[in-house]
């Protein structure tokens, strides 16, 4: 009878174990789409027999675990910042390339052509009041086009800085959350469901952080993770997080600091790295390029115009202001005195009203190689800028696609270990259901056998 009772309790234990398995299947199915969730696996073991005539005590649950491939997880943390960086560059420059003009940069070039055309018409009719007014109007349009694009580049830099600040805030929030999760790990014993859930959240949050900035992750023996920037400056050490701060220095450059140390150079990837690259490297380069072009236009036109003579025979003054290169595009304008009086436009190279040589010389600037040691025309210079912006966006878009493909592949590799397979869960469900049915049947048989035995004893 003792054996029968032992079998009965073994069957009951087995039913409990199988029930836990069913619960895990339910949990896995419910969280199949939950970001960061690692599937749970139940480890079963036969209950060992206690004597030579004992078959064993059924099955018991050794534990529940969440399998994780840390090598792939680390590769993901290295790869996703690179994809996000390219995405940030492409997104930030997307607005810049639109600002260059419709159809691939039709703005400055059209205004340059229109401006030189107007001087060509003035050369045809050097005493015409209409032609003189047209020169001033086209000059103002050209200056306006330069100012407008310079303003767009300034706005893009300001937007990039706003992006940097908000990304830094996000980084600090995530770092703080990781520190809290590290602290919370101790409250849950190893192998407990709570600990597994927190570990899931920990790695998922680290993954989210890696999208924002390139980080290094070190796992501690207790499962907690420490996070540093690429140069070793700490963001999270155990239960403590250390804030990143973004500010502008005296020259208007973004400085990133961590515990007072300048860590700007350490941030090269992630959304933050992409935004920093756009703001601190690409946009200033584009602004400088635009300023160089604007300054060349101002200088070349002013030189010729100043050497000419106006309609009344007086020496010509400057056409555009100001003449300096830094900020030339943003502040370019037709000289206000000239703008108010078309007669002051200098079309002549001598003090004769009908002379048109200065107008011809200015019109000929359209083909003059006045930049880069006499190798580049003004239109070429603009085309180079358009090419640079387009190439950066194109490269970043391609690189983002390539990096994302790698990320997806790594995620698939990670999921092969940690992801939930519905078919597998369905098979487990079926298997456990059958096991439960068999054990329940076994339990019923033993119970009936005991009942027969009890009836025999009662008689």
């Amino acid at each position, binding site marked *: 009878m003792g054996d029968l009772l032992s079998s009965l309790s073994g069957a009951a234990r087995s039913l409990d174990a199988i029930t836990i398995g069913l619960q895990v299947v339910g949990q896995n199915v419910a969280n*199949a*789409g939950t970001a960061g969730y690692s599937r749970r696996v139940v480890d079963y073991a036969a209950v060992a027999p206690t004597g030579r005539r004992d078959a064993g005590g059924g099955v018991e649950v050794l534990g529940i675990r969440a399998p994780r491939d840390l090598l792939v997880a680390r590769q993901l943390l290295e790869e996703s910042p690179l994809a996000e960086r390219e995405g940030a560059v492409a997104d930030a420059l997307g607005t810049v390339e639109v600002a*260059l003009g*419709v*159809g*691939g*940069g*039709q703005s400055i*070039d*059209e205004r*340059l*052509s229109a401006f*030189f*055309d107007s001087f*060509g*018409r003035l*050369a*045809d*009719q*050097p*005493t*015409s009041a209409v032609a003189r007014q047209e020169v001033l109007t086209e000059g103002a349009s050209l200056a306006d086009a330069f100012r407008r694009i310079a303003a767009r580049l300034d706005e893009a830099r300001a937007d990039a800085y706003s992006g940097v600040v908000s990304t830094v805030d996000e980084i600090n929030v995530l770092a703080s959350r990781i520190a809290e999760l590290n602290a919370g790990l101790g409250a849950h014993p190893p192998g407990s469901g709570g600990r597994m859930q927190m570990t899931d959240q920990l790695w998922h949050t680290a993954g989210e952080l890696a999208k924002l900035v390139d980080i290094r992750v070190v796992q501690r023996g207790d499962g907690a993770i420490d996070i540093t920037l690429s140069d070793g400056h700490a963001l999270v050490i155990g239960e403590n997080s250390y804030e990143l701060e973004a500010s502008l220095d005296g020259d208007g450059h973004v400085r990133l600091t961590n515990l007072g140390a300048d860590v700007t150079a350490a941030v090269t990837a992630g959304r933050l790295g992409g935004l920093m690259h756009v703001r601190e490297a690409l946009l200033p380069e584009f602004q400088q390029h635009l300023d160089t072009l604007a300054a060349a236009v101002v200088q070349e036109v002013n030189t010729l115009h100043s050497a000419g003579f106006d309609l009344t025979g007086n020496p010509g003054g400057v056409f555009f202001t100001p003449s300096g290169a830094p900020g030339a595009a943003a502040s370019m304008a037709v000289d206000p005195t000239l703008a108010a009086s078309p007669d002051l436009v200098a079309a002549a190279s*001598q003090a*004769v*009203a*009908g*002379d*048109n*040589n200065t107008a*011809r010389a200015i*019109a*000929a600037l359209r*083909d003059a190689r006045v930049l880069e040691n006499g190798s580049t*025309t003004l*239109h*070429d210079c*603009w*085309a*180079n800028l*358009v*090419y640079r912006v*387009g*190439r950066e*966006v194109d490269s970043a*878009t391609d690189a983002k696609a390539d990096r994302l*493909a790698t990320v*997806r592949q790594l*995620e*698939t590799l990670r*999921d*092969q270990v940690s*992801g*939930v*397979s*519905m078919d597998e*869960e*369905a*098979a487990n*469900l*079926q298997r456990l259901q059958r096991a439960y049915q068999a054990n329940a049947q076994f339990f019923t048989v033993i119970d009936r056998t005991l009942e027969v035995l009890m009836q025999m004893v009662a008689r």
Partner: protein
Amino acid sequence: MRITFNSSYREPLADLERAAERMAVYQRQVSSGKRVHRPSDDPAAAAGAIGERAELAAIDRYAEAADSAEARLRAADAVLSDLIMQLTNAKVAAQSGRGSVVTPAQREAAAGALEAVAEAILADIRVSVAGSYLFSGTASTTPPYAKTGATISAYQGNGSRMAVDLDRNESLYVSFDARDVVAPGGNDVFAILEALAAAVRAGDDTAIQAGLDGLDEVFQAATKVQSEVGNSFRMIESQRDRLNVLGLASKTRLSKLEDANMATAASGLASSETLYRAALAAIGSTARLSLLDYLK
């Protein structure tokens, strides 16, 4: 290999996005006819197109300059033709007042005709186009000769000439120094005609001959200048032909750079649409398949 719930959607979704992007690109090409809408669509083509548009703008400007030059030269040509005719009339009038059988009344009529020719030549040489005197050199706001009472002034313009660019390396003159036409030997035609009229009135055959010689010199000069104008017309025509060829070549290059190949774009749109539908169907059918469906 374990196919998990998330991975069974991840790649198909990425494929779907790529197919949708490709379809959108072809849709835009078909609807706009353009291949390059932003510099990043094809950076090299966008930069090349800027160069071609600048070239086209320059060609248009040179064509416009050719039109403007032609208008001025047509006016100059008409003046020169009339001037040559007037000189012929003057020579005829002077000849008619020459000889001993000519009566004083006939001499006076001939002298009057010569004075009328001087008036006509003065009107011709003072021609202006759009307010700009053609025969004053670059002093185009000043008439070449002025008349105060019966006196015609000396030349008031200058010796420079206004040129117009027909190309980067080609230009032609569109204004003239009136002295090259009416005063080739130093004495202008007005002085010659005045002296000639006086000689006719006086019956001074020697002076008449001198005047006729002077008119011949002016005639030669005017013919020479008109011949230059004719050459300029030919240059303009030749330049127009060249600009047309250059413009056509530039437009072709621009089209190659930024226009969509409609056949390629249309077939690309059709194939990308098919791919997109296939991707949608694949995701839909894969998502429906699960062992869970077979559990009872």
